[in-house]
């Protein structure tokens, strides 16, 4: 989407008679890329779908709070990352409370998932990513799969580029160590 297209879309979003139609265009434009970012964090399709629906409902209800100080995509990514991490925190808490079987393993779960096509090594990579702290996990997935620029990441996460670079390198190191221990 060009800057002019986005500007036009923003004007329509602030017009009550056109905003619903304009928002549908936003969903069509950004839905898929937001889904993949969410999916890389929450791993399961059904969870990613729930989180994505919440992201759009939240964006729709907070449309008046978006003051165009950042790009629309940056704002949507920020909501998506926050909603995904929030979902993971809640999931972690409920797992700790309700099950003793925490050691079942992310890799095993993914191998059994119909919507996961990777081999065992790729499932183990997801398990290694899953063990990273929130920020490292987010930075790693944005950089490794999306190849997102640190400047854009910095706007989404409201963190300095230097700190994000450090987080990425620590994440890479931890993932290497995870596999070194297994080899």
């Amino acid at each position, binding site marked *: 989407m060009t800057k002019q297209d986005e500007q036009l879309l923003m004007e329509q979003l602030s017009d009550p008679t056109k905003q619903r139609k304009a928002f549908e265009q936003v969903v069509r434009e950004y839905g898929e890329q937001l889904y993949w970012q969410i999916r890389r964090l929450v791993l399961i399709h059904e969870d990613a779908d729930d989180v994505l629906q919440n992201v*759009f409902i939240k964006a729709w209800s907070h449309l008046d709070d978006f003051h165009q100080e950042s790009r629309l995509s940056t704002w949507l990514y920020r909501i998506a990352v926050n909603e995904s991490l929030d979902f993971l925190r809640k999931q972690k808490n409920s797992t700790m409370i309700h099950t003793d079987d925490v050691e079942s393993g992310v890799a095993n779960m993914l191998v059994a998932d119909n919507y996961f*096509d990777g081999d065992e090594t790729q499932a183990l990579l997801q398990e290694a990513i899953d063990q990273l702290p929130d920020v490292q996990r987010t930075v790693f997935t944005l950089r490794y799969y999306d190849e997102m620029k640190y400047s854009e990441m910095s706007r989404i996460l409201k963190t300095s580029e230097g700190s994000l670079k450090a987080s990425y390198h620590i994440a890479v190191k931890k993932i290497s160590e995870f596999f070194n221990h297994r080899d």
Partner: protein
Amino acid sequence: MNYEEKEMQVRFGKENPFRVPEGYFDQLADRVMAQLPERDQQAEQIPLSNHRPKSRLVALRPWLYAAACTIAVVVMGITFYSHETAEEQSLASTSITNTNTNANTESQYIDDAADYAMLDNAEIYAYLAEN
């Protein structure tokens, strides 16, 4: 790109291992739009976090707390006041007998003190005369 990162790319590639159900992205926009409320009603309809409508008991909670505090203060006040009154009454009734027995009590006390100090009457008189 450092050595670890290169090694990682060789080992895992960058291919997306996740899949979605058939036609998921084609239907996504329609599904999302079907869930969106009208903007003017959204303040009431959208549960932003996990806000559920408050039950009557929850809504009344601050008033219940205030009522409980008031009752506690009143009960404590009554208890304290009645205790004080009872004590005053018992003091009043005993004070009459006390005045009668005061003289006896004092002399008894001096006798006890003299016994304890092993003083006899002569020493006491001598002590009083000196002062």
